[in-house]
């Protein structure tokens, strides 16, 4: 399984990761290497195996519908990069 630099650009866009163009080749090589390495999984027949998403067999626990959290905006926005009038600000989003 070999990736092209174009594949890496596409994945980087999906993951919203700016990658310096001078590093794309190195990433392409590393990622291809990792994918080749994990290829070994394909040697195993798993037709009748149930996928395992969690190490526990428990079902989801349900929370009672009670309000337990109250306004902490000031505290939470203290670590925000840019706020005004209680809003988080980002460059203009075009609809």
């Amino acid at each position, binding site marked *: 399984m070999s990736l092209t630099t174009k594949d890496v650009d596409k994945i980087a866009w999906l993951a919203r990761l700016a990658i310096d163009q001078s590093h794309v080749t190195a990433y392409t090589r590393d990622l291809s290497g990792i994918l080749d390495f994990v290829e070994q999984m394909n040697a195993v027949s798993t037709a009748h195996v149930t996928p395992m998403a969690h190490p526990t067999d428990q079902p*989801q626990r*349900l929370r*009672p519908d009670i309000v337990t*959290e109250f306004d902490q*905006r000031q505290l939470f926005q203290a670590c925000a990069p840019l706020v005004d*009038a209680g809003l988080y*600000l980002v460059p*203009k989003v*075009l609809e």
Partner: protein
Amino acid sequence: MEWETVIGLEIHAQLATRSKIFSGAPTAYGAEPNTQACAVDLGLPGVLPVLNGEAVRMAVKFGLAIGGTIAARSIFSRKNYFYPDLPKGYQISQYDLPVVSRGHLNILVDGEEKTIGITRAHLEEDAGKSLHEDFHGLTGIDLNRAGTPLLEIVSEPDLRSAQEAVAYMKKIHALVRYLRICDGNMQEGSFRCDANVSVRRMEQNEFGTRAEIKNLNSFRFVERAINFEVERQIALLEAGGRVVQETRLYDADKGETRSMRSKEEANDYRYFPDPDLLPLEIGPAFVDEVRGQLPELPDAKKERFKAQYGLGEYDAAVLTATRETADYYEAVVGAAGCDPKLCANWIMGDLSAALNRAGVEIDQTPVTAERLAGLLQRIADSTISGKIAKQVFEAMWEKGATADALIEQQGLKQITDGGEIATIIDQIIAANPEQVSQYRAGKERLFGFFVGQAMKATRGKANPQQLNALLKQKL
């Protein structure tokens, strides 16, 4: 060329829980920005979701109401995409195994009943809001809505016109309000939908390419957006073009749909089971418990109204369209103890007109069910005529008084004393000898003249039946 329209709706109903679907923050609408977004809603590093049991109960309620299958085991998945008002960079939703599947609903269009399939209904969290008003040339993000529970209800592509789509959406709207799982407030965005619209030639079997119109938040917009989109697609195809599968936005001001930028379309959501949440297991005991809490549903109520109150299909449908109207109707019938048809006419006539004029909902009416019953009793016992009752109703609406108080105060009580009516008739006969002789000579349409004179003399309070009978006799 004959074209057929094919529509499927994805309705998003905000569930009326007190707290959010995965956090203990409140869901109330209209708070100051970001004051109802807790650490979990903000997606702070290290936080984890815990599922609100009430949201699950509401989803199950809906599933049972549409005759759907409740999944014994369903899975929460992450839908990954980046957007400034999506705090975690993914939305927790259900993908492979939704909590509800395979239900249906009947709609009535042009007197014909049609069954619409509901593919699935699943639980998910809402995103925040991007405010595009000017904040120094920036967009403001308010995450109060982030984490509000949503039930996404996906129909089969069974709808064949904008009219059917609206009828279906209204039916779902009524149902979620009947079940008290959603407040249905469309202005506040509690109930909104996306429409998948395509067209095909009548003889064609496979579906055409569809466009998805996003975020329609009124019945009127749904109708207009679909009609516009259908015409656009037909025009395109007839001109030899082809429809592109894409997401479109409805511009209510211009009354048209337009394409959203294609870069957004390149999204690949990379759904996978959320490792922070375990499988949701719903046992038969839970389902039975919820079933026991189900209220009477709109269709069953309509049938009961027809049988119990002798109402026609149309009246029963109107009176059961919302749970509030049906409750109001039954309260009036119960309190008035008079003809259910009379009660129906008043609610669908004068009350409904007054509500529309004032723009208020039936649960906000100044004329309560008890008071309307009081008025109808006075018609039934002939204290006032139907015509006078209309005046009294107007006064009740304006002044907030009871019918009896107004009848008393304004002296509107009907004259039912035969002697009193006879005396008045005698006076009229004596005062109009010419008309009397003409009438007796065969000019029968003058009868109305005498009724008019008598009503004038009694200011409309004479009992019409008694007046007619006595007039005929004396003339």
